[in-house]
């Protein structure tokens, strides 16, 4: 190990109490940033879950639609015009909307109904643990997620409830299809979804377009827009981005998450800066000696920088372990913390940057060292 690294590490570990305080500061800061950003990613994934699972190349939506849950409706007659557009292989209708689920106890709870043509496999429920998509074609059949069993008062296949006066029966149970609004999703057939959410036959929430293999998506999109001035045609990615943007930034939730992360960075920077500065002050005689024996400023900075980097690496590793535990603990929750390898890499870079910036105050202190002081101390 190079001697400047040895000196840096020994300076750090020599004062264990200060080292522990530094670690607490860094770990607190990095975990805060990690959780905030993990929530951001988790939230982003949750709000686009339906779009990501749908089988569509293009989404035809009412102009101005902000997110998947938007209640805007399209004219159902558009289906024919869209189907006749060159390059379109299939047009599927989707009906969505909030409704009331009446438990057998008489209690009412809100649900979000997703109705699609199950035969076309456009947006069927996934992660089915009991029953099947085929079972949903039976009269009154619906699929719900097991995690909402208490809210919906159902726990097994065959359990019954009521949606807007229509009797429904649980024909399939899923696992892990949780809603970020905490309103349970109810999957059903398109035809039955209409009365559940009050969408008449001449209306539709979305049209999902599947393209022919040789079709040019931009050309088709342009042609689809000619069918009506009230529609937009978005790729799945565009619709995901729009939904995410609406929920994260339109509502201020994303800004709050970023503000929390920024706070973490500021707290971490201040703590590391303070401890590095006090460590440098405590070792000022040694830095003066280094200067006196001919060390360049660069060498002295390297000792301080290595101290900052050692802090960063150890602090990050500890924070990553805590982050891993948080990811595991929240994976089945309503809002999981999602930490991806790119996020981890970004936070590592941020931790390094934070500690390096923190070292600047210590470096400024060292800049003022007069080597002559070694004769007077």
């Amino acid at each position, binding site marked *: 190990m190079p001697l400047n690294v040895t*000196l840096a590490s020994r*300076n750090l570990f020599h004062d264990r109490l200060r080292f522990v305080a530094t670690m607490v500061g860094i770990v607190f800061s990095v975990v805060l940033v990690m959780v905030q950003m993990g929530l951001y990613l988790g939230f982003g994934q949750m709000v686009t879950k339906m779009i990501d699972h749908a089988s569509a190349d293009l989404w035809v939506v009412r102009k101005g639609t902000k997110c998947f849950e938007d209640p805007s409706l399209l004219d159902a007659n558009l289906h024919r015009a869209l189907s006749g557009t060159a390059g379109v292989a299939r047009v599927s209708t989707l009906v969505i909307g909030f409704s009331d689920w009446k438990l057998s106890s008489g209690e009412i709870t809100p649900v979000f109904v997703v109705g699609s043509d199950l035969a076309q496999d456009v947006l069927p429920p996934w992660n089915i643990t009991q029953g099947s998509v085929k079972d949903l074609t039976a009269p009154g059949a619906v699929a719900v997620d097991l995690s909402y069993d208490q809210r919906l008062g159902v726990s097994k296949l065959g359990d019954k409830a009521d949606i807007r006066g229509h009797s429904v029966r649980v024909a399939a149970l899923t696992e892990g299809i949780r809603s970020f609004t905490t309103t349970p999703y109810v999957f059903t057939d398109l035809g039955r979804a209409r009365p559940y959410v009050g969408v008449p036959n001449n209306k539709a929430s979305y049209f999902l377009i599947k393209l022919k293999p040789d079709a040019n998506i931009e050309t088709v999109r342009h042609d689809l827009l000619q069918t009506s001035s009230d529609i937009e045609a978005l790729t799945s990615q565009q619709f995901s981005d729009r939904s995410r943007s609406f929920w994260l930034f339109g509502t201020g939730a994303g800004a709050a998450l970023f503000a929390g992360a920024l706070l973490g960075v500021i707290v971490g920077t201040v703590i590391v800066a303070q401890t590095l500065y006090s460590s440098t002050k405590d070792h000022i005689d040694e830095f003066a*000696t280094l*200067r*006196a*024996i*001919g060390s*360049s*400023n660069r060498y002295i900075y390297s000792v301080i920088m290595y101290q900052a980097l050692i802090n960063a690496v150890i602090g990050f590793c500890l924070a990553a372990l805590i982050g891993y535990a948080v990811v595991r603990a929240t994976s089945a929750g309503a809002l999981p913390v999602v930490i991806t390898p790119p996020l981890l890499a970004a936070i590592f870079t941020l931790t390094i940057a934070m500690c390096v910036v923190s070292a600047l105050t210590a470096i400024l202190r060292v800049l003022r060292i007069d080597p002559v002081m070694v004769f007077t101390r």
Partner: protein
Amino acid sequence: MSDAIMAAESVSKVLGSGAGQVHALKDINLTLRGGELTMLMGPSGSGKTTLLSVLGCMLAPTAGTVQVCGQSTEGAGAEKLAAIRRDHIGFIFQNYHLFPTLTAGENVQLALDVRGQRGRNARSKAYEALARVGLAHKIPSYPGELSGGEQQRVAIARAIVSDPSAILADEPTAALDGANGQSILSILAATARDPNRSVLVVTHDSRLTSFANRIITIEDGRLTGERRGSSGTPKLLTAAGDGY
């Protein structure tokens, strides 16, 4: 006679400003040559340490010039002065100034590390230097585990390991008992036998003069006398500009 390793010409140094201004050095002319151990003696506040600092390129003179191995320090910035110290000078301090978190071996190696000398070769040079001062068995010891005399010997090893042309020692025996002081001086005297190296020792201790090839006295910022070896008495300066 060997070439001059260090030379101060008409050096003056003013410290402080305004009412607190002190003329710490006044018109100093001094040449240090290889193969000599020079002792600089004088009462407290006479300017010994200031002169050592100026010769050691830590302080820039207010007037006059300093040359180290033919290199003038005139107009040199802090980094240039550090480079001159790094290339030519080894320092020994009264309070040792060892790094408490590094072992004796690492303390000595550090002097090579700042000079960009690393690896196995640097390590063996550091161990050799410690062996030269009789501390081969203390390589893994931390300064806190060493006596004062041993710590100062580590400091000497640190000063000599890079084979500098000049070694400047500030009161190297002040914190030591008589026996340890004699031991330290004998090591420095041996070091000064190299004709390419000059050793300047600032000391109060007149018992150590027997180790010196040359003794310079300073008072009130002026060099006031010089004698050779342990014999003779300082000659008095007769006129400003007389050199030593």
